[in-house]
């Protein structure tokens, strides 16, 4: 409402700038208008005199200039005499008044309604950041904490608060850094170490890197009973190709497991995968626990799409950088599972080229392929 009042006031003031001069009487202004150019020529005449007295121009030149300017002065005088008195006619004035009273507001407000966003509030950053927490989006809250941490980088508690939020927003690298800061400032804690390792793992597309691994190891050392770090360490063993050790690790984990725990299914799957058909000694990159867990919640098509993405990623990597025999086997198997026999054959052919000089590995791949019916 205040907005529209202000708009009305502005429009009114603008209209007044037209209406007020229209309403003034004529006589006030007509005096002295045309004498403007006469004044200029009079001034020029006096300038000629002063230059002459100064000796800048001689008498002859001064006289010539005087004549010339005098002629202009006379012309200007005649023009004034011959000019109409500038009277106003009612019709014209009324048209202009209508223009100011009606045309101006209609045109201005109409155009504004087309172009503007009436009612949209201002959103200064400070106001958004200082609004009560319950009214704020997660994004704003994060920005607030970030600003706070920029000012107080030594606030370990702050870092520990924002770290899981980062992870849930998908900013795994930032999350890992935040955990690292919290740990540096407030000392080691099992859950933070574990979560940092998890964040690092996610940031590396499910690969448990050396950093992540050392975090999980520290966490496990702090609390031997904690499941999560050991879960990831078991994945790490599997990824490093230490199949036997990995199987042992999974078995230990599952032995004391509460059957209803969410992770048990994923662990069993990993275990089955390791026991089933992995040739020993080849590093593996599998999906992370989260990805697997996520895939279970997905609709069938989504899951298919996710698997296809992963397969495409693997194929791309193997094509570009090469990989172990186990990975090639995995790719071929994946294609067969997805029902893409042609692609599986192409992958086999590519593997044959890649392992041309290594008959042992090649025979492994070929065996696997023949088992799959290729």
């Amino acid at each position, binding site marked *: 409402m*205040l*907005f529209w009042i*202000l*708009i009305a006031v*502005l429009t009114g003031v*603008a209209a007044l*700038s*037209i209406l007020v*001069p*229209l309403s003034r009487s*004529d006589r006030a*202004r*007509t005096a*002295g*208008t045309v*004498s*403007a*150019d006469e*004044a*200029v*020529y*009079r*001034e*020029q005449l*006096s*300038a000629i005199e*002063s230059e002459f*007295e*100064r000796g*800048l*121009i001689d008498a002859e*030149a001064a006289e010539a*200039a005087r004549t*010339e300017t005098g002629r*202009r002065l006379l012309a200007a005088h005649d023009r004034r005499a011959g*000019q109409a008195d*500038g*009277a*106003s006619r009612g019709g*014209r004035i009324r048209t*202009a008044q209508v*223009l100011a009273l009606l*045309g*101006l507001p209609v045109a*201005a407000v109409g*155009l*504004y309604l087309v*172009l*503007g*966003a*009436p009612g*949209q*509030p*201002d*959103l*200064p*950053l400070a106001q*958004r950041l200082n609004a009560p927490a319950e009214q704020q989006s997660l994004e*704003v809250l994060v*920005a607030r904490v970030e600003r706070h941490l920029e000012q107080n980088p030594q606030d370990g508690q702050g870092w520990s608060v924002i770290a899981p939020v980062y992870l849930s927003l998908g900013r795994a690298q930032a999350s890992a850094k935040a955990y690292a800061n919290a740990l540096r400032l407030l000392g080691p804690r099992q859950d933070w170490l574990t979560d940092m390792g998890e964040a690092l793992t996610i940031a590396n597309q499910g690969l448990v890197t050396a950093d992540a691994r050392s975090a999980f190891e520290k966490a496990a050392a702090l609390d031997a009973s904690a499941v999560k770090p050991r879960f990831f360490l078991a994945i790490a063993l599997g990824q490093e190709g230490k199949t036997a050790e990995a199987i042992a690790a999974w078995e230990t984990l599952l032995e004391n497991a509460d059957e209803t725990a969410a992770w048990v299914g994923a662990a069993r799957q990993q275990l089955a995968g390791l026991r089933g058909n992995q040739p020993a000694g080849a590093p593996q990159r599998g999906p992370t626990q989260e990805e697997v867990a996520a895939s279970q919640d997905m609709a069938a098509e989504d899951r298919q799409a996710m698997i296809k993405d992963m397969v495409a990623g693997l194929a791309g990597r193997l094509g570009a950088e090469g990989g172990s025999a186990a990975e090639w086997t995995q790719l071929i198997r994946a294609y067969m599972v997805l029902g893409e026999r042609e692609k599986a054959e192409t992958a086999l052919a590519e593997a044959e080229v890649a392992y041309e000089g290594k008959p042992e590995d090649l025979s492994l791949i070929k065996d696997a392929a023949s088992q799959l019916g290729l």
Partner: protein
Amino acid sequence: MIVELGHFTLVLAFVLTLVQSTVPLWGALSRDDRLMAVAPPVSVMTFLLVLVAFLVLTVAYISSDFSVLNVIENSHSAKPLIYKISGVWGNHEGSMLLWVLILVFFAALVGLFGGNLPTDLRAVTLAVQGWVSAGFILFLLATSNPFTRVTNPPLEGADLNPILQDIGLAIHPPLLYIGYVGFSITFSFAIAALILGRLDAAWARWVRPWTLLAWCFLTLGIAMGSYWAYYELGWGGWWFWDPVENASFMPWLAGTALLHSAIVMEKREALKVWTVLLAIFTFSLSLLGTFLVRSGVLTSVHAFATDPARGVFILGLLCFFIGGSLSLFAWRASMLKQGGLFAPISREGGLVLNNLFLTAACAAVFVGTLYPLVLDAVAGEKISVGAPFFNLTFGPLMVPLLIAVPFGPVLSWKRGDLLAATQRLYAALALALAMVLFTFWLWGMEKILAPLGVGLAVWVMAGAVAEIVTRVKFLSVGPKRGFDRLVGLPRSAWGTAVAHFGLGVTVLGIVTASAFQEERIETMRPGDTVNLSGYEVTFDGAAPRRGPNYTEEVGHFTIRTGGVVISELDPSKRVYTARQMPTTEAGIYTTGFSQLYLSMGESRGDGAVDVRIYFKPLITLIWIGCVVMAFGGALSMADRRLRIGAPKPAARRKAAVAAAAE
């Protein structure tokens, strides 16, 4: 709400400029005083409304209101306050808003201080200014609205182009725009005069302060831009003949010509057609510059936006205003009466010569700027017209002009005596020749042109002094009377002399800094010392540093002469984090009028960095000269005689005349 109010005031201003462009014109054509009287208050109101819109946008920038698209695209909450403010005009939309603000500002100035003008001339001038304003506000609203909102505001903006994050941006565009856009008012005066058929000596006098005002600011703006490029771009150059620089230089050349031809028109009522044409051309060149910069035809730091729709719109405005004004000119110019006659050797002749060379120089710059663009558009061929072209065309045109400068003011009107004029300049000539010989003695014969250039500069400076001295006649009337006469000289005479002196100062700076510059490019390790022009420059090492929105590698250099530390410089290379864009900050040590210029290049892995070191003798004179020129313009503008209009009481005027004549 505030943002939306700003948007509304801009829309309201647009509608009001439509009133401003029609009602007073109607009044003038039908000789209706009341309708004409609408012009001044409406122009002031339009200015206030655009000012509110501009302030609103500034508030949005300061408060980092990211619900405004323009703020998102060009600001960042971590930016220092000054750059939040200057960032308002550091982008396409905001700078066009500033453009419009200055356009309506000049209209408001004429509305407020144009009381000495005839009512009809003032009304029509303001109406024409209203057309231009309406065109550009429409351009803003239709293609580049600075008040466009977004519904899901992000929390951080994209930051301002780092090169523009400099105190230079706070000063350069406003100055330049006041100059650039200021010529719109002379354009409006010219069109109004053509419409009303009142092109006479009085018109030239009325236009003069407005031309001077625009010219002063344009001079300062160009100088400021040049100094900014010099210390920010890190190449050590101060003028690059970059098309965007040329875009501001062409109106300056045309505007300078206009200033001089308007004097002839004012004094003798001659050169009327030419003066009006120049007034049209000067603003047309400003418009052309805006088109070149804004359409994306040119890519440079100034090309904020490359949007074909905007280019087409500005091209349309360009065609309308230039084409329209030239058609009007063609139609009305034939009705003009022949003005005063004059001999070739006379003050008028000198000013014609000045105009000839200035417009030829302007044409040379025009060709050099546009030819590559036309060739690219027509033949798809990319060529670059660089400094060599301009040095070969612009340079030779300037030499005769500079030789002629001191003669102009000492020649008399109508019929001059070249011999007598030369006699008045004997002392200046002697001084210039002495400087040539001195420079030869100092630098030897290896550089033939440079001492002559120094001589030319001294000739212009000494000529300006000589003009004042001869006017005052110190030698014949004695010091006491002479001093009185000095004080009594009209300010416009002082303005001429000071501006010409400034021109000489700038030329001196250009000649010495170009001819006698010394340059070294070295890879320096910490502890290394380079000797240049008697300075020992020691590199002490480089260290990283964090700024509010950038990180930088700062080098530390110690400058010594004869082992004594005289200065320490910290040039740096910055990377602005939001845009991941590097910039260079030069380290500059000023000694007298000369400068030692240090710029860091790539760092080598082992702590070594590439360093460019220049010694630029008298380089600051380039910019000091420009400031002096602008001061001369300001003096001339302050001339008492320009402010007459409302007739003064006779007694007071006589007293003033008597005082002046003393």
